């Protein structure tokens, strides 16, 4: 009996000790609150227009009244105007609106279409590339996909040019002669840094144009927040050599795919 009483007492004491311990300590708390506002990565493109769109409805004035065709005088090496409206050049924005800056929408893709082109035709295309996000971007990859079909709709050339690596990968290699590809040359460009209407760089070939962009934005054309530029590019359809004239009724689809990446991810 005595042992039992002792056991009960001891158990009670132990329980109280534990209860007492649990309730006896004081505690205090400090708080850290974190608010994370993530940035936005968004580089968009938009067509401004061409200088030979039917009706002159886009953002670039046509080269001449009445949609007369723009041409290029290879002897004088300057643009000229022909007295006929035969060919036309149009441009369209493709895909969803990626971002909006100063009430202007920017897209994922731009498509240019040239109809009824002929030797010496030389339209001008204008496009803008803008970083409308808050995170700087650099070109991670840039490829040019070209498909040329002949007058029967048969693919005679299909290849991808990797601008960064500088090499072609042909699925269908172009024949030595008979393509229009080798007769199309950029002859004039102007670059408007910051899209403010003033031309900051001018030149005559693509390599110089890329060099000018690199001078302004670094090797990978890094665009910081609010950076942007407009490119005005004239493309000339050359006559071709006598044995390899610019072919008639060929269709060429040129797609330039530029992948921009957050600047610190580009190797």
């Amino acid at each position: 009996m005595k042992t039992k009483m002792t056991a009960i007492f001891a158990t009670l004491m132990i329980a109280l000790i534990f209860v007492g311990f649990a309730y006896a300590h004081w505690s205090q708390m400090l708080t850290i609150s974190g608010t994370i506002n993530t940035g936005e990565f968004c580089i968009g493109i938009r067509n401004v227009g061409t200088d030979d769109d039917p009706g002159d409805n886009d953002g670039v004035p046509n080269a001449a009244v009445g949609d007369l065709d723009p041409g290029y005088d290879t002897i004088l090496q300057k643009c000229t105007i022909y007295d006929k409206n035969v060919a036309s050049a149009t441009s369209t924005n493709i895909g969803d609106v990626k971002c909006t800056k100063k009430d202007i929408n920017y897209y994922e893709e731009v498509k240019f279409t040239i109809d009824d082109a002929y030797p010496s035709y030389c339209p001008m295309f204008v496009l803008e590339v803008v970083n409308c996000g808050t995170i700087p971007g650099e070109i991670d990859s840039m490829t040019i996909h070209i498909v040329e079909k002949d007058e029967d709709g048969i693919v005679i050339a299909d290849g991808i040019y990797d601008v960064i690596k500088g090499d072609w990968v042909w699925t269908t290699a172009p024949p030595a002669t008979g393509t229009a590809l080798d007769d199309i040359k950029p002859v004039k460009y102007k670059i408007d840094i910051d899209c403010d209407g003033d031309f900051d760089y001018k030149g005559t070939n693509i390599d110089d144009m890329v060099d000018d962009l690199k001078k302004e934005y670094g090797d990978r054309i890094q665009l910081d927040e609010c950076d942007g530029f407009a490119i005005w590019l004239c493309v000339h359809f050359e006559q071709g050599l006598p044995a390899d004239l610019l072919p008639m009724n060929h269709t060429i689809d040129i797609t330039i795919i530029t992948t921009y990446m957050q600047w610190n991810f580009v190797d």
Partner: protein
Amino acid sequence: MQNKKLMTIPILLLLALVITGFAYSHYQQILTIGGTINTSELDLEFLPGSVTSKDVGLDWTVKSTCDPPTIIMPPTLLDKDVGSTTYLLKDTDGDGDLDKLELTIDKVYPCYYNHIDFWVHNNGELAWKITKVIVNDGHADHEYTNLFTDCFDLDNDGKCDIVLRWGDSFNLQTKYCESLDISFDFHIVQDAPQGETLTFTIKIVAVQCLEL
């Protein structure tokens, strides 16, 4: 039998008289013990001016993984100042102690890294130790009693947005007037949503510590 009863009566009578007599005859004195209990205080605060952020200009980056949660050191300095971290110490209950550290982390992007360091000061009278850190990612509490590195899904989309690593500040006795250095770092990861505001809360729990 009769004799026994007769004996009992005088004995009881005597006993009653003795007791009564004692009660009436003793001298008495009163001693008083007056007790005033001043309880001590367990208190801690963010030490004013002690907060530092690694990002004070150009941004820092680091590599991390979410499975398992790891921040791979060392951090490297980037060539741009895009993201930023600002902080503010606050006294939320008006008792004069800075009890809240508000961090605002702006314009951050995948790979943004920062390290926050601060001191917690014992401004009470009892020693304490940090026993627990509770991270709330907006939808659940996660308790830690040891140093940890963990991934948190702040927008509840099932993907990790931030890797947070807490330094070893647990169970270190901090006495009156002493301060404890605490730090944590974080890394924004690829699945963090763009253009969003995400929040988290970290509670640091200190309990009285009797080890002297």
